[in-house]
C-alpha cells in the first residue's frame, strides 16, 4: 500500500508544505505583476502612438490648408477667371503669371492645371507627367483634397481641386487643379519621429485603399480591418504582418489616413524580460524557502528522532540511555525533561533491583534456616522416638513374661503413640518439603498416573474388595511427582474411608471447565458432615477419631498444597455415611 502524504514524517511534510505555499504565492504574484507591467507597457505604447499621430496629422492638415488657400486665392483672381471663361483664348499671360506664383519656374514634382468646363485643359504649369489625365477630380467652391496618387512609380502625389466661376451669375466655367507631392522634409521626419520615439512605424495613405507610404517609400497598405475604425483617442490592436498596437486617424479635410504603429511583441518585450527576471528571483526565493523549511524541520525532527530512539532503547531495557538536545527552546526543555525522567526511572529501577536482591537474600536465608530446622526435626526428633519405641519393644520381648497385663497394655499404648508420632513427623516433613520444591511443568498422562496409583492402593488393601473405576482422563500440565502424590493421597483416603463397605467403590473421572479440567475422586465411604467441609484440608484437621480411621490429618493438606501450587482449586462434597467426592482442577496439557 502506498503511504499517504499525511502519513509522511514531519521532516517531509513541513518542507513540502512550505514549498507548495511559497510556490503558490510566488506564482500568483508573478502573474499579477506581469499583467500589471504588460498593461502599463500597452498603455504607454498607446499613448505614444496617439501622440505621434496627433503631431503628424496636424502637419498634414497644415500643409494641405496652405495649398487650399493658394488655390482659392488663384481662382478669385479676375484675370484667371476671365482666362478660363474665355476658353483660354484671352489673358493667357495673366493666368500664366498667376500660376507661376504657385508653381515657380524650375519647380519639380508639382503641377498646376486649369481646365474649362468642357474638359479641355487650358493651362499646364510644372511637371507635365503629373497632369491629371484623363479627367481631373471633381471640384467644389472650396478646395478639395483628393486621394493619394502614384506617379513616377514610387512617388506619391495628391490633387487639390477647386471650381472657377465667372460672370455676374458666378457660372462655373472651369476648374483649377494643383498636383503636389507628399513633401515631408528629412528634418521634419526626424523631429517628429524623435518626439514619439524611433521605433514607431509611420504610415500614411488613402482611407479607401492603396497607395500607402512610410514617408520614404510606398508600401502595401494596412489591411482593411485596421483602417475600418479610425479613432483619435484610442489605440487599436490589429493584425498587420504581425500584431500591432496602432493609432489610426483620418486626416481632417482629406480622404487620407495616418497610422502610427508599434509591434505588440516589441512593446511587450520589456515586460517579458521583466517576467523572466522576476521569475528567476522567485525561483531563488522558493528554493531558499524550501531549504529553510527543510533546515527548520530537520532541526525539529532530529531531536524528536533522538528522543524516539532513546525512548525505544529505554523501553527495551537500556535505562542508561540519554538524549542530547541542546538549547532552551521547547525541544531543549523536552530533552531535559526526558533525561530527568529516564534518570528517575533508572534510579527507581536500581532501587527496586537492590530491594529484590535484599529480599531474595532474606528469603534465601529464611529458606536455609527452614531447611536446617527441617533437617534437625527429621534427624533429632526421630532418634529419641526410635529409642522409646525400640526399648518399649525390647521390654515387651525380653521381660513380657514378668509383666502384669496392665503394664503390657501401657507398653502397647507407648508403641502405638510412638508409631503415630513417627508418621506425623514424616508427613509434616513431606508437607513442608512440598512448599520448597520447584514445580516442574510437563505433560502428564493422567490415565496412566491414576492407573498406577490405583494398583498400589489395591495392593495395599489386600484381600478387601475394592472396586476402582477410572474414566478416560484428559492429560494435564504439571509436576508428575507432585500430582502422583496428590492422587495417591486422595485414592488412599478413599480406600481408607470405604473400609466398611463391601465392596468399596471408588470412581475417578473428570469434566471440562473452560481451559481447566475438573478431576474428581468419588467414593461410597463414610463421608463427612458438610458443615466441616472447609476444615478438611487444614493441617492436622481430622473429622474422624483415630479409633475409627487412622491418619495424621496431613494427607489432604498435602493435596491442597500441590493443587494450589499448580494454580488449581480443590474442594469436597459429601454427607455422613453417604460417601464423599473430592474435586481438583488443573490446566489442560495444551494450556
Amino acid at each position, binding site marked *: 500500500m502506498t503511504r499517504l502524504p499525511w502519513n509522511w514524517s514531519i521532516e517531509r511534510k513541513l518542507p513540502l508544505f512550505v514549498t507548495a505555499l511559497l510556490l503558490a504565492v510566488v506564482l500568483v504574484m508573478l502573474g499579477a505583476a506581469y499583467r500589471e507591467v504588460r498593461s502599463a507597457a500597452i498603455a504607454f505604447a498607446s499613448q505614444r502612438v496617439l501622440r505621434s499621430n496627433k503631431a503628424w496629422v496636424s502637419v498634414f492638415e497644415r500643409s494641405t490648408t496652405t495649398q487650399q488657400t493658394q488655390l482659392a486665392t488663384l481662382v478669385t483672381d479676375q484675370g484667371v477667371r476671365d482666362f478660363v471663361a474665355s476658353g483660354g483664348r484671352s489673358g493667357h499671360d495673366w493666368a500664366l503669371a498667376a500660376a507661376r506664383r504657385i508653381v515657380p519656374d524650375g519647380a519639380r514634382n508639382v503641377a498646376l492645371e486649369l481646365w474649362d468646363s468642357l474638359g479641355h485643359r487650358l493651362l499646364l504649369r510644372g511637371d507635365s507627367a503629373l497632369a491629371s489625365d484623363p479627367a481631373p477630380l471633381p471640384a467644389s467652391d472650396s478646395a478639395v483634397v483628393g486621394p493619394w496618387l502614384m506617379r513616377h512609380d514610387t512617388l506619391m502625389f495628391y490633387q487639390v481641386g477647386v471650381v472657377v466661376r465667372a460672370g455676374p451669375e458666378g457660372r462655373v466655367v472651369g476648374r483649377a487643379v494643383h498636383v503636389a507631392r507628399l513633401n515631408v522634409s528629412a528634418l521634419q521626419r526626424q523631429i517628429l519621429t524623435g518626439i514619439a520615439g524611433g521605433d514607431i512605424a509611420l504610415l500614411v495613405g488613402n482611407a479607401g485603399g492603396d497607395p500607402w507610404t512610410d514617408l520614404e517609400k510606398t508600401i502595401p497598405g494596412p489591411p482593411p480591418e485596421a483602417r475600418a475604425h479610425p479613432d483619435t483617442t484610442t489605440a487599436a490592436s490589429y493584425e498587420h504582418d504581425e500584431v500591432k498596437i496602432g493609432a489610426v486617424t483620418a486626416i481632417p479635410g482629406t480622404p487620407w489616413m495616418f497610422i502610427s504603429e508599434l509591434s505588440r511583441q516589441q512593446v511587450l518585450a520589456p515586460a517579458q524580460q521583466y517576467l523572466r527576471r522576476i521569475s528567476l528571483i522567485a525561483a531563488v526565493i522558493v528554493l531558499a524557502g524550501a531549504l529553510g523549511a527543510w533546515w527548520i524541520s530537520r532541526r525539529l525532527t532530529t531531536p524528536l528522532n533522538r528522543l524516539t530512539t532513546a525512548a525505544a532503547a529505554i523501553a527495551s531495557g537500556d535505562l542508561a540511555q540519554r538524549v542530547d538536545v541542546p538549547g532552551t527552546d521547547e525541544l531543549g526543555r523536552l530533552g531535559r525533561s526526558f533525561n530527568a525522567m529516564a534518570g528517575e526511572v533508572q534510579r527507581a529501577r536500581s532501587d527496586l533491583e537492590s530491594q529484590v536482591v535484599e529480599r531474595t537474600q532474606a528469603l534465601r536465608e529464611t529458606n536455609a534456616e527452614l531447611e536446617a530446622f527441617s533437617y534437625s526435626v527429621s534427624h533429632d526428633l526421630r532418634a529419641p522416638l526410635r529409642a522409646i*519405641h525400640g526399648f518399649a519393644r525390647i521390654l515387651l520381648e525380653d521381660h513380657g513374661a514378668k509383666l502384669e497385663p496392665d503394664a503390657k497394655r501401657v507398653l502397647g499404648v507407648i508403641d502405638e503413640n510412638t508409631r503415630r508420632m513417627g508418621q506425623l513427623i514424616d508427613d509434616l516433613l513431606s508437607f513442608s518439603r512440598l512448599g520448597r520444591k520447584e514445580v516442574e511443568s510437563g505433560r502428564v498422562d493422567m490415565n496412566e498416573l491414576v492407573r498406577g496409583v490405583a494398583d498400589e492402593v489395591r495392593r495395599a488393601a489386600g484381600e478387601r474388595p475394592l472396586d476402582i473405576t477410572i474414566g478416560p482422563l484428559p492429560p494435564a500440565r504439571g509436576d508428575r511427582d507432585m500430582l502422583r502424590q496428590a492422587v495417591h493421597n486422595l485414592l488412599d483416603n478413599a480406600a481408607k474411608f470405604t473400609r466398611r463397605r463391601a465392596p468399596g467403590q471408588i470412581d475417578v473421572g473428570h469434566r471440562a471447565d473452560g481451559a481447566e479440567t475438573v478431576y474428581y475422586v468419588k467414593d461410597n465411604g463414610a463421608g463427612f458432615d458438610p458443615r466441616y467441609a472447609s476444615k478438611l484440608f487444614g493441617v492436622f484437621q481430622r473429622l474422624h477419631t483415630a479409633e475409627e480411621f487412622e491418619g495424621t490429618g496431613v494427607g489432604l493438606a498435602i493435596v491442597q498444597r500441590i493443587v494450589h501450587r499448580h494454580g488449581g482449586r480443590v474442594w469436597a462434597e459429601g454427607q455422613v455415611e453417604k460417601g464423599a467426592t473430592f474435586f481438583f482442577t488443573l490446566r489442560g496439557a495444551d494450556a
Partner: protein
Amino acid sequence: MTQPHEVEILLVEDNPSDAELTLRALKQRNLANQVFVCRDGAEALDFFFGDGSHALREIGVVPKVILLDLKLPKVDGLEVLRRLKEEARTKSIPVVVLTSSREEPDIARAYRLGANSYIVKPVDFEAFARAVSDVGLYWLLLNHPPR
C-alpha cells in the same frame, strides 16, 4: 569384646540408644560378634588413619562394611565418607549410610561421595531391626568383596 582381627562391621554411631538397637538387631542374626563401634567421626578416622594410638590401627583391619551415621560430633559423617573414599586403601570398603535424615540434599551428597547404599532409619523398631539385619546379611554374607 570384639577381637580386632575379627572386625567385619564398623558401626559409626554417636547415639548410644541407636547403637544398642542396631547391635540388638544384628545380634538376632548372629552378626553382632564382629561389630566395632566408633562414637564419633574423629574416632572413625582414627580407626583408619590415626597416629597409631588407636588399638586397631597397627593391625590394618579392613572391615567388610561400614555402617555410617551422618550427624556425628567432631567430624560429621559426610566428611568421614569423603576421606574414606579418597584413600586408596579404604576406597573399596562398602559404606552404608544409616541415618535419620530423609533430606534429599544429604542423599544426593552421600551418593556423590561414593556411598554404596543409603538407608533411612525407621522409627518403628520392627522395621528398623529388619533394615539393619538385612543390611548386615547382605554385605557380610551375600556380597563378595575384592581380595
